[in-house]
């Protein structure tokens, strides 16, 4: 099947006209940080809602000189990441890597790599629900208007109600933030731990929502402020005193894992590429 793709399909799967359209949309997105630019998303050979937005961005940008890393939950070897990587490999000559520092393009679901993205790298997010206001307004027609008028009272009220009800803001991942003092955007379901990495960063962050047909961007050096109140500041996930059982780090995002035989709970790095490198460093004196 994969070998077959190479002969029968265009370079990077999509026809050239479609790739050009996606790049033009991306340019507009870069010009208006956080604004969701509509585009006519194509059906891809992986499930709709399984990363087709990110995949279309990747395919529209990739060339043979590129080096691609694909992660899901921080992991290079997660099945969906592998599936996406295989598809890109089957229709391009681009090199793949697990080393985030070697990659020119990184497609991700739910994480930002631990090592900061450089100016010559692009991080591409797969986005399930691009509309941060959807939690307070079901209709697209209305949310578009709310963004246009910068009427964000609904979402602020939602955060306030959380505090009244639970004593704190109860949003876990996909925490809404304000891009360059203008548009509230959904950072995709990355943990809160990763959200500050978007603020005034060196690299370009692109967000692709295939099913919802939107592309948006956080360009380099954009202000990204998580929504919070002065007396209820933004908080990231807590890993009080926990360390990775593989590389020993205590400053990374950790997965909670249970040993099925002993029932014991332990932690290890969610960013497997980075964890691997740290382990190698530890073993080479």
């Amino acid at each position: 099947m994969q070998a077959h793709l190479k002969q029968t399909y265009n370079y990077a799967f999509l026809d050239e006209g479609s790739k050009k359209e996606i790049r033009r949309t991306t340019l507009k997105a870069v010009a208006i940080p956080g604004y969701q630019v509509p585009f006519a998303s194509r059906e891809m050979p992986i499930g709709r809602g399984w990363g087709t937005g990110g995949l279309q961005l990747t395919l529209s940008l990739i060339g043979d000189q590129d080096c691609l890393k694909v992660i899901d939950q921080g992991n290079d070897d997660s099945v969906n990441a592998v599936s996406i990587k295989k598809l890109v490999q089957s229709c391009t000559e681009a090199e793949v890597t697990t080393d985030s520092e070697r990659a020119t393009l990184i497609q991700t679901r739910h994480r930002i790599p631990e090592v900061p993205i450089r100016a010559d790298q692009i991080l591409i997010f797969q986005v399930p629900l691009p509309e941060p206001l959807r939690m307070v307004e079901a209709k697209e027609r209305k949310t578009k208007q709310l963004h246009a008028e910068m009427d964000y009272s609904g979402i602020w009220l939602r955060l306030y109600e959380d505090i009244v009800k639970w004593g704190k803001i109860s949003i876990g991942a996909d925490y809404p933030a304000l891009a360059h003092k203008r548009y509230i955007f959904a950072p995709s379901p990355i943990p809160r731990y990763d959200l500050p990495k978007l603020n005034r960063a060196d690299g370009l962050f692109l967000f692709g929502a295939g099913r919802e047909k939107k592309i948006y961007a956080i360009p380099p050096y954009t202000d990204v402020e998580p929504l919070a109140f002065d007396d209820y500041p933004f908080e990231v996930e807590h890993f009080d005193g926990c360390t990775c059982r593989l590389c020993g780090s205590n400053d990374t995002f950790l997965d909670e894992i249970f040993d099925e035989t002993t029932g014991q709970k332990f932690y290890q790095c969610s960013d497997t590429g980075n964890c691997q490198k740290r382990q190698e460093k530890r073993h080479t004196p």
Partner: protein
Amino acid sequence: MGYVAVTGGQKAIEAADRINQWYRIKDAAHSLETIEIEKQLRHLTDRVMSEGGLYASEYAALAIKQAEGDLCEAAFLMRAYRSTLERTYESEIIDPGQMRVIRRISSAFKDIPGGQMLGPTMDYTHRLLNFTLENEQAHVLQELLKEQIPEFDTNQTLSFPKVAGLLREQGLLFPPKSSGALFDITRDKLTFPAPRSAKLQILARGETGAMTALAYSSMRGHTTNHPTVGELRVGYVEVTIAYPFDSSESLCLGELMLTEVETINAFERDDQGDVKLRLGYGLTFGQNETKAIAMAILEQGLETKGETPSQDEEFVLLHVDSIEANGFVSHLKLPHYITFQSKLDVLRQTQKLAESEKTETPKE
């Protein structure tokens, strides 16, 4: 073999591919010929072409074989293939009034010009399992049917005037709402309020079950909508493009089989005070009659104001696509470790807060 989505992904996928192939073929006496699917499972092929938005019966049959009969998966294969095709021409407008009809009925009038023609339908056949099909001899049956239907000739030209044309001549119909410039849902993201052309395109390739359920909800009681099928016709129409070197001439590319439905709804009064009937319009690839009727009901419902789900354009148009609905619902099978971890973190923090509140304010 246990699989952890954390590691071993590559090997697990390869193994799953192999196991899939094994399950597909392990008990097979012979591999299914795609031409058997194409020619003998007409409705299945038609449905996959319709929901896939690609008129190619050979490929639809291949998709059905590859998907082992999973309809949504087969429609999905067609859509994904469609994404790779360059858009070269736009066809000229097709006139279903010129259709080479194989079936045509009206529930509104007993006598329609040209008459009703039941054609291929199971509508009036008892739903009893026909056990003789288990040992059917195709060529014996073919000979028998040829004798029984002596004038049977699929190439005869039969075209009829449209029933809607009669009503229009008598001044009983509102003209269709103008859709302005043609919107293309495969080239532009839908905006709301959606233009009529976009609504029709989305419904034309919508998922049959989803559309039938929504149309049923509208008929059953959520609106008082009980339309009459003015005409349902199934048949072949020619697709033509303007001749590239002389646009006054047309080039015929081939034929499409279509189902067209026009429903007549309760009369309305328009802004000018005129009282007339409004048509609902349904058109699908292949013989997909229930879907075409559902489309006409939904299309008409979206033109009326009201609070029911079937009158809400965002509700209907954003949820009837098979590929999108199936994709997103099934993505829940993907790992959500990070989001869940994050949710757990918030829960634990909130629990701590709740505990401390309990100890601070003892019960009176």
